């Protein structure tokens, strides 16, 4: 039990108490929503954990470091940006994945770019976004988000 785990659980308990005092019905609803989210996220979360296990067990740290490590430079950033844009996985899942990559020698820049593109840029949802918001809006937004992700990654890498 580290301090992060304790604080997160303490925050949750505090929120639940406040919510219970204000409205019992809504609190029950919130728990139902939480359960539903948990059930639908479970296979993805477990799948990522299995992948993390294989990644850390099979791929030597030097290899990961070479592809997405400190010295990987532009190639590492572009790889992360491309993967992040194309893959369609919930951002919640991207954090343990990012943590495992850093544990294996990936740079903070690469992981920040990956997380940011994963959430902000969506190739899979492009048709849906174009239908609702129009082609020009969608393409500009995704393009600029990609640029923003790289800038954010470089800045994060500079201070972490």
């Amino acid at each position, binding site marked *: 039990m580290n301090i992060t785990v304790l604080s*997160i659980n303490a925050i*949750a308990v505090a929120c639940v108490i406040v919510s219970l005092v204000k409205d019992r019905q809504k609190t029950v609803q919130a728990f139902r929503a939480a359960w539903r989210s948990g059930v639908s996220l479970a296979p993805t979360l477990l*799948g990522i954990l299995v992948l993390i*296990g294989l990644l850390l067990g099979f791929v030597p740290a030097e290899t990961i470091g070479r592809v997405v490590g400190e010295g990987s430079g532009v190639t590492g950033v572009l790889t992360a940006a491309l993967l992040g844009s194309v893959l369609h*996985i919930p951002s919640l899942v991207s954090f343990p994945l*990012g943590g495992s990559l850093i544990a294996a020698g990936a740079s903070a820049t690469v992981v920040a770019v990956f*997380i940011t593109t994963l959430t902000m840029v969506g190739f899979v949802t492009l048709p*849906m976004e174009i239908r609702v918001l129009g082609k020009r*809006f969608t393409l500009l937004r995704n393009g600029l988000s990609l640029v923003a992700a790289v800038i954010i990654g470089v800045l994060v890498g500079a201070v972490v």
Partner: protein
Amino acid sequence: MQGASGAGQGHPGAAQGQPAKQNPRGWVMLALLVAIAAVLLIVFPAQREPSLNAFWQFLVEMMTVMPAVLVIMGLFAVWVPKEAVNRHMGRGSGARGLALAVVFGTLPTGPLYAAFPLTKGLLDKGASPANVFVFLAAWACIKVPQELIELQFLGWRFTVARFGFTVAVIVAMAFVFQWLLGERESDVADRV
């Protein structure tokens, strides 16, 4: 990465008050992945221990925070109604509008595509494209409850740095976005 594909639809907060979404494809993928992992570990016994150790370590880290985060996200979903977001952002302009866009973007839960219809409503009500860009970006990658998971796996430094730089960069990008959208901005507003 196959185990992860198609899981986007099973995102927290997307379906409020609806029955739990079954995700048989996700479970089939997981079974497949576990089978492949089992074969690999049997064929390469040397990798068995490091793999299982890593899996177990991350599983424990996940299980100690995930229930709490899911509950917090559930509470956000019932206490931060999407209509409130719509009401306050519609007239937002200037620095206040941008600040509201960041705040409102980080509060609700759900995947980015759940925000598209909401965005359309905001544009219809006269929110500026810059504000809408900030709103979508904040919605996408700096959700408050999810930051707790980031804290757990990536640490304070990384989380705070990414949060701060993300806000700064997306606000700057928002103006580039508005400028590039240019005079045809009204066309977009008309169309959407």
